[in-house]
């Protein structure tokens, strides 16, 4: 719909920096970078208004490859750095790039607070279910029993379910996409940009060196259709080789029904991304795909909600205070009670 998009003020090419990209060949990060560079010009906003803030990790090298303003900060703290930037500069479009370790392990404290405060920023959570940069230890999203250098007998940890965690933290925009589906990722990024509030986009990203194929079952042709569920607003939840399977809600229990086998399409669950309860159930479609009778893994937008942003609240208070009169430094220094000497 070319008429609707604004004339770009810059091209995708202009977003490429002179820095050599240092990710391993074949890393899923390349695709994510490409999709971000593809959609950004469509937003009709000058390049200098974008700031990419990252923590530490392979994924967090991202800002060096974006010809915008950017900060490569410290492990886990990108969310907090970005918060200060956005509160003080609400005019900017602030993007946080983080990894599963960065956001959900060392930075988990800041991550949940960002979500509840609802600053108008976009979070790109590159989930590769591994610590890439430190060469392959299990992460808080690695499946239990994961064998890595630091868990030779398998990890004992129960993993986080990032989307469910975000629902628990009262996030106002929760989405999931994947590196291997450029069109889908682009559409989710656009929605994330359009959402006023913290937009949390979990992106399944393949680390082909330390966790190759972690999401293969969702991303590769042979299994994708059967194992994934692409949620679309107002549409029934349908998946399967030929769209022949659907999800029906039995009370609060999601059930896979076989449309081809005669189940009525009218009974299917219609996706409503503004329904918190249903979104919460959808984030719980998190079964290990090796389990029998498991539910498909949802992609797209689980949930959106309009809620005032933190920075608007802060700035509204400042405006209100200033309406009663701008601060007068001499008055402040003088205080309420003074006395004269001499």
């Amino acid at each position, binding site marked *: 719909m070319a008429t609707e998009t604004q004339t770009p003020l810059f091209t995708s090419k202009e977003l490429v*920096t002179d*820095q050599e990209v240092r990710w391993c060949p074949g890393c899923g990060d390349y695709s994510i970078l490409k999709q971000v560079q593809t959609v950004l010009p469509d937003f009709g906003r*000058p*390049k*200098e*208004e*974008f*700031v990419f*803030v990252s923590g*530490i990790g392979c994924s967090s090298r991202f*800002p*060096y490859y*974006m*010809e*915008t*303003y*950017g*900060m*490569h*900060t*410290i492990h886990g*703290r990108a969310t*907090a*750095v*970005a*918060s*200060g*930037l*956005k*509160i*003080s*500069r609400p*005019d*900017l479009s602030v993007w946080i790039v983080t990894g599963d370790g960065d956001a959900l392990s060392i930075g988990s*404290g*800041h991550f949940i*607070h960002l979500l509840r405060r609802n600053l108008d920023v976009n979070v790109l959570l590159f989930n590769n279910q591994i610590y890439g940069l430190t060469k392959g230890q299990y992460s808080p999203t690695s499946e239990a029993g994961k064998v890595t250098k630091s868990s030779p007998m398998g990890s004992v940890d129960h993993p986080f379910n990032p989307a469910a965690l975000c629902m628990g933290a009262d996030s106002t925009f929760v989405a999931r996409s994947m590196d291997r589906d450029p069109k889908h990722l682009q559409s989710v990024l656009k929605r994330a940009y359009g959402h006023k509030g913290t937009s949390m986009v979990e992106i399944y990203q393949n680390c082909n060196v330390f966790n190759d194929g972690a999401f293969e079952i969702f991303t590769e042709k042979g299994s994708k259709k059967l194992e994934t569920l692409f949620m679309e607003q107002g549409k029934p939840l349908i998946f399967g080789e030929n769209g022949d399977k659907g999800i029906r809600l039995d009370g609060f229990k999601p059930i896979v029904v076989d449309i081809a086998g005669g189940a009525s399409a009218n009974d299917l669950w219609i996706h409503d991304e503004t329904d918190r309860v249903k979104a919460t159930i959808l984030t719980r479609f998190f079964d290990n795909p090796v389990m029998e009778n498991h539910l498909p893994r949802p992609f797209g937008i689980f949930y959106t909600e309009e809620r005032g942003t933190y920075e608007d609240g*802060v700035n509204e*208070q*400042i405006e*209100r*205070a*200033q309406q*009663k*009169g*701008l*601060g007068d*430094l*001499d008055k*402040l*220094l*003088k*205080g309420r*009670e*003074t*006395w*004269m*000497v*001499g």
Partner: protein
Amino acid sequence: MAGAQQLSSVVIRFAGDSGDGMQLTGSQFTNSAALIGNDLSTFPDFPAEIRAPLGTLPGVSGFQLHFSSEAIYTPGDICDVLVVMNVAALKVNIKQLKDGGTIILNTDGFDPKNLRLAGLTEETNPLNDGSLDKFQVKQIDVTKMVRELLKESGLGVKEIDRCKNMFVLGLLFWMYNRDMTPTIGYLEGKFGKKPDILKANISALKTGFAFGETTESFAVTYEVNKAILPKGEYRSITGNEATAYGLIAAAQKANLSLFLGAYPITPASDVLHELSKHKNFGVRTFQAEDEIAGIASAIGAAYGGSLAVTLSSGPGIALKGEAIGLAAMMELPLVICNVQRGGPSTGLPTKTEQADLMQAYYGRNGECPVAIVSANGPSDAFFAVYEACRIALQHMIPVFCLTDGYIANGAEPWKFPKSADLPKINLSFTTEKNSDDKNKFLPYLRDEKLSRPWAIPGTPGLEHRIGGLEKQAVSGNISYDTDNHEFMVKLRQEKVDRIADYIPLQTLDSGEEQGDLLILGWGSTYGAIKTAVKQAHNEGKKVSHAHLRHLSPFPKNLGEILKNFKQVLVPEMNNGQLVKIIRDKYFVNAIPLNKIQGLPFKVDEIKQAIEKFV
């Protein structure tokens, strides 16, 4: 009043349960002293627990006030008057009272229950065991009188008992010939919406005053005249207020928005509280989820072009270490206020100490020098933090501003400056490409100060990335080159050292430029050192005093000054920190004088040390 006895200075210590309102009593009395024009200095001494069990020793809260018709610099070594609401307060504070001093005590606080709570019995009751013989003891049953007075007030016993402190305050106002009006005004402001409580408090205040007039045990009143201070208009100010105002003033003078990212911690929180009141100056205070988020958010705000500040005390500063390193690598302006308290770990949260100097100097991974300034008293915190902001902004560097619990909560009169008289803070954001051919923006191209340009997001054409990885000189691109790293480490040190070209030379606070003994101080030891040196001078002793504002870098002439003395004595409320840095840097015979009791130095302690040398 006829027959009022003239005194030049008085030290009163108010003490009671932390629920007894002693801090309020003390600060109201302070206010009255200020309005009369006395010079004054206060020392609130809080318990660590907000409400430790009633009547117990750990629950005692104290407030010491020194007011005088002469210039004074400390809250006083020893008290003339001790006001105690219970026996625990007496037991904790009696050491601080001079022989022959006056004790005003609430007898109800010496009943069997209170004795037991303070670990005493009827036999060891100080009222009966003769231990108070060398003092003048005024026993008043404040509780009983106030309950009697307010029995018709409609208030419950608890609320009535809360008015006891006003009775005591009224009595002291009478003793020292003070006007009750400002306190009545204060009460009206505080309890305006609760008329019965307001009435009860005013009534207790006035009754205390009248009690002084009518009872015979208080035959004498005293008068402490206004002090001869430099001419001008004064107000009373605490160190934490001064810190908040200094930050606002610097932001105004630099024409920037002020951003504070902080997490509450004693004794720093009051700066956060104060700043959050002044949104009409465009101040943004962000109460973060922890101290790391506090500093991280400030770094984000600094990149965005705010005057960015983080604030904490030692434990919180420890958490900020990694992020301070990030700010140093990014070469962003950042002010880090540390209101020091007793450490390590949780240590003595409500007590004062100067033990975080090494932390400010060295407390980060890698070679990470930063600038450090310190305040020497409550009102001086304004100028110290103002200077910290100036250095941070003009040199693009993180700067520590060190105060401590004693400065933070202490109050003194302040001849406050006019905003027009404050030094300008010139700076500008970079808006043009800066390479030779004007074709590129080089974020790490330096000026003569070795400072780099500040280009903020939103500026067209200057898009650039900064981060914590080692960077190539000039371009700021990531570089793992070994020679470059060594070069950059030395450069960042040189950048700090070069600040010395832009700060005032060190001067002596008093004494001659050469001699046997120099006392070199920093921070809140100022008042005690100054007073001790003054006394020594009056006795004809030769000793000089220099007090440091800039701790990193030191003023350029400090080495010269030090070499003019045979010995340098360095008093510190720690186990010897500045003294080590001075010895390391200047190879001089610097001798430590340490006090590590969570309490400020007494004048006498410094005086005795001087006497050992001269």
